[in-house]
């Protein structure tokens, strides 16, 4: 089962305001791709040597925030009530 299929089962209230911003200029100097592997929701994808990012499926675990040591990731929580809402947890 693919991650995107799993994420489709979850309940999200997606905010128009983006809660994670990625400074791609810093990503260009980094070949670690640690964000790609540490994100359990595949929010970071390596395409043609570029990191592309989407915040919609974010499970708000904070792994990428800890993993990126280039300071490329700016992380705040989604505004109250937005983001993931676990039905089971």
């Amino acid at each position, binding site marked *: 089962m693919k991650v995107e299929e799993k994420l489709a089962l979850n309940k999200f209230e997606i905010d128009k305001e983006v809660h994670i911003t990625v400074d791609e200029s810093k990503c260009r100097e980094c070949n670690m791709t640690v964000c790609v592997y540490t994100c359990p929701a595949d929010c970071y994808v390596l395409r043609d040597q570029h990191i592309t990012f989407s915040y919609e499926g974010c*499970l708000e675990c904070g792994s990428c925030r800890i993993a990126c040591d280039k300071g490329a990731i700016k*992380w705040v*929580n989604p505004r109250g*009530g937005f983001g*993931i809402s*676990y039905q089971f*947890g």
Partner: protein
Amino acid sequence: MDKFDAIVVGAGPAGCATAYTMAREGLQVLVLERGKYPGAKNMWGGAFFGPVMEEIFPDFWKEAPVERSVSRHTISMLTEHESLSFDFRSDRADKNHGFIILRAKFDQWLAKKAEQAGAIIATSLEADDFLYEGGAVAGVKVGSESFPASVVILADGANSLLAAKAGLRKEFGLHDVKQGVKEVIQLPREVIEDRFGLQDDEGAALEFIGSCTRGLPGGGFLYTNHDSLSVGVVVQLAAVGEQKVKASDLLEDFKNHPLIQRYISKGKTVEYSAHLIPVTGVKILPTFAKDGILITGDAAGLVLGTGLILEGANFAMASGVAAAQTVIKAKKAGDFTTKALDHYEGLLKSRFVLKELNAFKRAPEFLENERIYNTYPELLCSAAMKMFENDGTVREGSFKTLMGSMKGKISIWQLMKDAWMAKESL
């Protein structure tokens, strides 16, 4: 706006325990929860030990949304094709053997208890900064709105953004946390009871090490809920980054393992979740109190991980109660300075919270030894494979078979060293 005695950030086990304890003593308590409801942002593996819960709410399991109570506990070593298990069952297992619980239901129940005691639970509100008065924390901000309070108690979990902002601790590092990913897989309750050999509300807690993390520090788990299974993998975040292995891929491998596949067969995945777990114990402990602020639960790194035990919620609740007792005392004295709030750390030291974290302080280092996840499962599974087969050749004694399996995999010296470390750490 009225000034609260205490504002609690986060309505999980730590936040609800602290809010309940303070509200019961008549304090004006506001709990700010960023999720749509308490539990909306929370997940765990699923097994929960309840001694502190029992202290606060005697006989809680009779009323709380508990899925099943644990009567079977297994620890299994996995290789790609084999498994070797230690399987404990008891028909005398009681409340001390733990409960299997889903957070979305449980946290709402817990928050309701705090509310009934008089606390205000406000959901969909994300506290993102502090109010200060003369250098002391004097409340929180939610966007441009201010919520003043005599004291703030952080209970905002492993990914606390406010802990570092308040200067209570550094950010966790990659070696300090494990990442847990989990699926909830629905199956009819009779099928679950048949497959796991359970009756009525009995539950099984299954834990795994070995190929489920491809030999990386961590493990797999499977817990039986009422009519679903919680199936997941926990893996050290540093190893994920260094080895370029995704936890989501490990989870798929785990689900496809012959042992697990039979348990979850024909089940329907209904949710996928992920969370961080602080696991390096005393190494990452924060400054517990500063002027006008205390920190509890996962946000404070109060999780015990020994390999056999991974316990956070019971610690969270104990720290929540200790924080509440400290604030009740501080209110009587009218003193919320660091000096008064330092009482909190003393309470944690006098209880199991810091006692157990100190007793197992070498466990995190021991658990980084990859032989535990790699060499030993392979060695023991291959020895078992030999012992339980008859290929027509002359058989050797069990001890010789075991020694034969060790050949080329591990030296006697390494084995003794690991055994010594295990004795010292666990």
